[in-house]
């Protein structure tokens, strides 16, 4: 790791001031992506501004039809939170599939979403559940937030503080994890909001995206059977040593069907 200076922020305001004062500084929350990246010398920030333990970022609460999750909530906290399990069990289940137990004890939802790794799980939750990303300066709709590989609508110095998840009628996340890394080779969150259907796909493309054809089809008939004529295109999907684009296109179909079947109780056979 290159030399750097560590700064532990005691408030969001202080973190903002430090970010402004040090243009090469980076925010540190759980560090589950950042520290390994630094160890490999793939980044060279001058300072790390630690916001991982700010109490103002840790709260998880329900406000009628909205679940609010603080940006520094740990994956393990989201997975085990009674409030989350009651409001959106699919979100708790998704959080429990990220990385491994030690990673879930440190990693934060804000860090995962701000990093927008194309194979991360949380972006699918934020996009699929049509969440609002709350930052130090504004509120951003999920559909406007994610802008492709490791790219988001966040401006310099803007800090994610919380997520507002509208509580859906029903939802399920089906994930095909890479057996070694645990990242999603493809993960699909299917959400029946009560007013419509949203299907968010992670791990398959350059960033999380919605599969609109499946949404329309499921809106017409929320069933595995409605997939008979559907096949996601392989165009533009990720290709690597683990899976080519056609394989991932098929995974999108299979994971979407599994998610729907888990919701409806249909058999996949």
């Amino acid at each position, binding site marked *: 790791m290159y030399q750097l200076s560590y700064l532990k922020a005691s408030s969001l305001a202080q973190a903002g001031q430090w970010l402004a004062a040090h243009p090469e500084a980076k925010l540190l929350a759980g560090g589950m992506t950042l520290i390994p990246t630094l160890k490999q010398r793939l980044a060279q920030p001058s300072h790390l501004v630690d916001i991982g333990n700010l109490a103002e970022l840790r709260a998880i609460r329900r406000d009628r039809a909205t679940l609010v999750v603080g940006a520094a909530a740990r994956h393990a906290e989201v997975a085990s939170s009674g409030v989350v399990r009651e409001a959106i069990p699919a979100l708790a289940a998704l959080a429990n599939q990220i990385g491994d137990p*030690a*990673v879930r004890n440190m990693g934060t939802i804000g860090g995962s979403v701000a990093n927008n790794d194309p194979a991360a799980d949380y972006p699918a939750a934020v996009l699929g559940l049509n969440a609002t990303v709350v930052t130090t300066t504004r509120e951003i709709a999920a559909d406007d937030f994610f802008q492709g590989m490791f790219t988001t609508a966040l401006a310099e110095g803007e800090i994610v503080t919380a997520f507002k998840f509208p509580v859906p009628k029903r939802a399920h996340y089906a994930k095909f994890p890479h057996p070694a890394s645990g990242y999603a080779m493809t993960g699909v969150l299917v959400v029946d909001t009560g007013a419509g259907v949203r299907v968010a796909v992670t791990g398959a493309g350059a960033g999380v995206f919605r599969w609109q054809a499946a949404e329309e089809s499921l809106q017409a008939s929320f069933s595995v059977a409605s997939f008979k004529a559907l096949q996601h295109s392989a165009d533009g999907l990720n290709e690597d040593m683990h899976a080519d684009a056609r394989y991932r296109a098929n995974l999108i179909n299979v994971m979407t069907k599994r998610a729907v079947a888990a919701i409806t109780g249909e058999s996949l056979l």
Partner: protein
Amino acid sequence: MSNLNRVTLTLNGKTVSHDVEDRTLLVDFIRDHAGFTGTHVGCDTSQCGCCTIHMDGRAIKSCSLLAIQAQGATLTTIEGLAKQTATGLELHPMQQAFSDCHGLQCGFCTPGMIMAAVDLVKHCPNPSREEIIHGLEGNLCRCTGYVNIIKAIDQGAKVMRGAV
């Protein structure tokens, strides 16, 4: 530029204090500065789990944290699990179970396995086989094929919850 800062924390019940660079990893603090070499480094990519310890009661990978992030924290490593009794050192039930069930071969991954297992059982006192496997996803063993490790954790969990 080599800015040293004092990191003070509680390690296995004792206060430990050292001047380290901000970039010093917690695992290096534990091994090189505090001298507790039971916590191992098996990879450089945060995947193997050999460096798993407990920080403020939760399992974490000490290779993926800066020492200064643990400022003021309470840490337990594999060396802190056994109990000192009048007749000598008494192994933690999970350590004893790994020994009894032959839950290791070369032993390199074992400290991390045991720390992960103790944390798992603390939050899930009666884990199913699937829960044990899910709980071990962050710990790699290249010798055993995991069969006896799973058996050991099942056995250790029974003793920890007083079922035997």
